[in-house]
């Protein structure tokens, strides 16, 4: 057994240097049973995402600085920020975190709704909030349709799509509340979404009663 002169400990035969102080202990390296594999701490995939993130943040920072210097305010650089943030949130994040189909779908719809709000803000600074009373309800209606189809196709599944439909019903009802708080009235778009959401939930209670309540109990246990 080799011995490190600095630390006084015996060092495994396979090691050239003492793991404690790094001092050289021998020239010969022998494979031993306590050996660990050599690992490259960074994979190419991770490096790709890190470089992409760095380039994106760099582009945003340069745009903001130039905009502030030239226009003394954030004008066109807001479009750059949104243009970078949206693909990162809706595409890169689901890919990085290995999202499943249902989650990718959700983030896709969130992205679409965010894009509508962005366009609304850009065109008329929400003086006429059409993204809220028309755009978002239409997106939610499409989302509900897709979820209903997937719920029917995967009716033997784990209940994720049933929960998606419930969440959409709750979202629609919440948006009715937000409408009254924000616009002091509610538009037909959210009423339609909420009515459809309630019908979905009632249908689930009737046709998939056991599974649906078991799923609710599981996810809402206090």
């Amino acid at each position, binding site marked *: 057994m080799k011995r490190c002169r600095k630390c006084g400990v015996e060092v495994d035969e396979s090691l050239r240097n003492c*793991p404690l*102080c790094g001092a050289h202990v021998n020239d010969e390296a022998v494979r031993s049973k306590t050996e*660990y594999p050599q690992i490259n*701490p960074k994979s190419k995939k991770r490096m790709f995402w890190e470089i992409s993130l760095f380039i994106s943040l760099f582009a945003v920072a340069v745009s903001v600085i130039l905009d502030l210097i030239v226009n003394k305010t954030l004008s066109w650089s807001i479009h750059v920020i949104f243009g970078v943030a949206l693909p990162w949130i809706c595409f890169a994040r689901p890919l990085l975190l290995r999202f499943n189909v249902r989650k990718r779908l959700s983030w896709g719809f969130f992205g679409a709704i965010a894009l509508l709000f962005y366009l609304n803000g850009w065109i008329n600074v929400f003086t006429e909030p059409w993204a809220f009373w028309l755009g978002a309800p239409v997106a939610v209606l499409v989302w509900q349709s897709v979820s209903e189809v997937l719920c029917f196709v995967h009716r033997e599944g784990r209940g994720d799509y049933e929960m998606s439909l419930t969440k959409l019903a709750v979202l629609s009802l919440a948006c009715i509340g937000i409408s009254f708080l924000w616009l002091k009235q509610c538009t037909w778009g959210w009423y339609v979404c909420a009515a459809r959401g309630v019908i979905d939930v009632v249908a689930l209670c009737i046709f998939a009663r056991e599974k649906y309540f078991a799923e609710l109990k599981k996810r*809402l246990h*206090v």
Partner: protein
Amino acid sequence: MKNELFDREWFKLDNAAKIYPAAKSSRWNAVFRMSAVLNQEVDPDILQLALDDVINRFPTFRVTLKRGFFWYYFQYLAKPPVVEEEASYPCAMMPLTGRDHLFRVRYYSHRISVEVFHSVTDGTGCINFLKTLLLRYCEICGAHVEDVGDILHYEDNPAPEEAEDSFSRCIDKSKGVLPRKEPKAYQIKGQREKRGVLDVTHGCMPFEQLHSAAKSRGCTVNTYLVAALTYAMLRRQRYEHKTKKLPVRVQVPINLRKIFGSSTLRNFAGYYNTTIEYGDWSFEDIVKELDAQLKGNITPEYCQKFINSNVALEKNPVIRIAPRFLKSAVMDMSFYLVGESVMSCAFSNIGNVIMPKELQGFIDRFEFVLGAQKYMDNAMTCASFAGKTVVTFSRTIKDPILEREFFKVLTEHGIDVTVDGNGR
């Protein structure tokens, strides 16, 4: 197919398990590893066969972590676990995707490792799983074992007690709760390793020598190791040119199973923080002080109060009805404030691992590795088997400051330490 043990597809996390998903971040989650180094190279095909046989004996392992609105929960996972060759650093982040197992079985050269997300089980549960896996592996390799002792055999049916949340069973509100306020403690800092890198250093020594060193100072091996760790940290702090000197506080886990008569394979461990104020201590004085602290404080009353404090927090109506993301934020903060910032180092000792005599020739040694801590840079563990004790340090800083100081203390006491690891 349902999880027959529970007769349902999901179950709640136990009290101790709840903190780990709440405190997880994109860079960290709580993973630890138990390994056995065999005397022959590991055969992955046999290991897979052994795992296929063993996994149904441990239904609490066959789960994935899901998000509920108020709490996380475990969902039964039908897909079988697959053994994998070691291709990352020890205790790499566990993918908490809701589709993967919360443990993995890895092999490399002569080593079989089981890595577990801490919510699933604690050290005792994990070592039980590894022992059963090793027993089955050796049986397939041709070993014939007459008496398996306390090892859970893969052919036995899992008992309901093995899946109980013992924290909830053992609560006794009349005994009071623990005060949890402790000031900050000294921590060794240094240049950080790259993200995802965990440097592991094993110090292998004869148990007899360690036992004699402890016995000559009138303490147990556990106390001796805590004392050596504390002494090493105090010595290190003396070299540092900081005006504010902090106490050294080591977190020592307590296996609550023996005290409360539980055989659960889920989490059921408490902890006690030993404290030594900064000063000019001799090693013998530290041993005396720590012995008094550990013997005087780790009592059934302390453990009962520990359980009460934890469960009272969980059962608080305001906390229960708060949405999960709010709870997680609060729990993450408390994980830092009353957890890792008040500790100098975590130390865990699984003690002497006992295997049937027929398997002694198959296995060289056991190792226990704590994964990266969230706010601390060092952790120390210990495992003994067949007269061989392996003290393992895991760190996320480049310089092995603590292990260097620690093993110096041991070699000064005449203990022959052989070191190896995955660094350099």
